[in-house]
């Protein structure tokens, strides 16, 4: 099977990804201690509270950076917007994850610099970046000072407990997402190719004979 080397992730996105990853891991670990204080993952509860708070602010900044960069660079336009072509690819992709993968079939989707994600990925990343991340950031900011945001809390949510409920519910969605994301990133590529691509930018993948993805030569130009 021919292999090809594709440039997928710009340096900016790679640096952002790992920074964001660090923030999310910090938030996830501290969140467990906040919810179940007996776990004492960070020693003093106070440390967990403070780390969670400031990591939360960092997350907000990180998201704003990603949004600005992605809008300007075309990342959203090329990689996130769901197109008709993606719809057709949904079933084969799901079939691949549930059946084909066990038979050693090749991934029906081959990423390209201007089309990084398959339909399922687009749904997962779109909902994460445009629904869950903004929701968890907004509820988190509101919870960081419920006095200051009291009017907002009452007019939109009705009370702090509901804000908390939203925040925690979305946090569970994030945890589920993170586990699946990590599994797929580590175990679905060829020899950690997905992880490597997020470090070095290039991904090396076998190209199936009848792939829908356009065969592409190694790209040295400016990817999106």
């Amino acid at each position, binding site marked *: 099977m021919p292999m090809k080397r594709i440039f997928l992730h710009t340096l900016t996105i790679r640096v952002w990804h790992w920074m964001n990853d660090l923030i999310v891991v910090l938030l996830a670990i501290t969140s467990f201690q906040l*919810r179940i204080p007996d776990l004492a993952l960070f020693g003093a509860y106070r440390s967990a509270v403070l780390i969670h708070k400031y990591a939360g602010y960092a997350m907000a900044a990180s998201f704003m950076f990603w949004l600005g960069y992605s809008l300007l660079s075309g990342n959203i336009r090329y990689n996130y917007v769901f197109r008709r072509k993606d719809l057709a690819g949904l079933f084969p992709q799901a079939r691949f994850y549930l059946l084909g993968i*066990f038979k050693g079939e090749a991934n029906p989707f081959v990423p390209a610099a201007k089309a990084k994600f398959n339909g399922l990925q687009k749904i997962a990343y779109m909902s994460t970046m445009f629904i869950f991340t903004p929701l968890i950031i907004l509820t988190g900011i509101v919870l960081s000072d419920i006095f200051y945001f009291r009017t907002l809390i009452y007019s939109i949510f009705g009370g702090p407990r509901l804000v908390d*409920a939203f925040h*925690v519910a979305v946090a569970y969605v994030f945890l589920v997402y993170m*586990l699946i994301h990590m599994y797929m990133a580590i*175990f679905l590529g060829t020899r950690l190719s997905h992880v490597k691509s997020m470090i070095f930018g290039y991904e090396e993948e076998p190209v199936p004979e009848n792939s829908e993805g356009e065969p592409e030569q190694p790209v040295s130009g400016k990817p999106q």
Partner: protein
Amino acid sequence: MFILLFVFLCCFPVVSHAAVSTEECLGCHEAYKGSVHSELSCTDCHGEVTKIPHAEKLPKPSCSECHDDMVKRFNSSVHAIKGIGCKECHDVHFLNKTAKQRIDAPVCVRCHKETCAVYDNSAHYKKGAVSCTGCHNPHNIKTYKELNANERMAVCSRCHKNYTDKHRWLPNTMLHFTYLECATCHSPRSEKSMVFFFARREGQKKAPLTFGDFTGILGSGGKISMLAQIERDRVATSADIEALFAVLQKGLGRDLLLDASILVTKVYHDHSVKVAAEESCDRCHSKEASFYESMYLILPAQQGNLYLPVKGTLLSSYPLQMVLDIVLIGQGKIKQADIDGLFKLGPNERANYIKELGYKWIDLVGLALLLLVLFFVPLHLVLRVLICR
């Protein structure tokens, strides 16, 4: 003749008052000479004494004739309600000018023996804050249970003005001070409780419902008898609170809320324990926190407040709109018992139980989802390895 008699009768009281002078009184009551009241004549208070020797038992003089404001204030204090009069504390005849009217430990200890004994061993006392009246004003004193957290803190903050600066280490400092009083930490031997009360939203603020609010909304008859029933039982069940909430909501709509705070319900009068070294959050932010052991519903009564022990749990397991304002991180939302309950109960009870779980569903569903993922992800991997081989 009649005119002469009229003049005589009119003059008689004056003549008789003048008949008993202060000097004459002091002839027997010499010890009263240095009293703060010595500027007055004895008959200003004991007007009924018209001759000497007078009756052995004289009627009680009314202090309010001169100390009107003070007496009015005093009459609404718990001291007056318990039947204590001015004379129980103030010895009006021996009150001397230099000591002024200040009443202190030697007087207070007559009734508050245990409290004074504890206080005498506290750092406050040892460091020179020896006077009870330094913190308490006996003329408008309320029972401890009548004071809310803010009023209790106001007592401490008269001296400890920079308390917020000293507690900067505490995340969300001001939030803590809204729901806690100083004694929560600085009097570890006091009993702490989580107390619930009905309040109404007023713009950005919340005001606890008063007795007037209750009677205004509940009216007389059936509804108020429900309240009376709760009071008679001396305990509030979760069903009581839910029913009361529903009735009050008809009057106040969305402005009604059930609020909570942590209050000291049994005072140990040593408020000088420094806990700076501990600074541990999980004494409270844990399901093991002591205040979950004693929870109360506070209902305003005609005089003071009623503290009704709450049976069962309130946190997180109540209808959504009821506990919107109560959220305490780290309360350890789900327990083994919650999960057991789902499987062990009969079908009818289970339906009710599912409703009662309320906000706990977030954690139950969330953790179930996580477990499913943790099961299926390795399964996917193992199957891949096995089948591909």
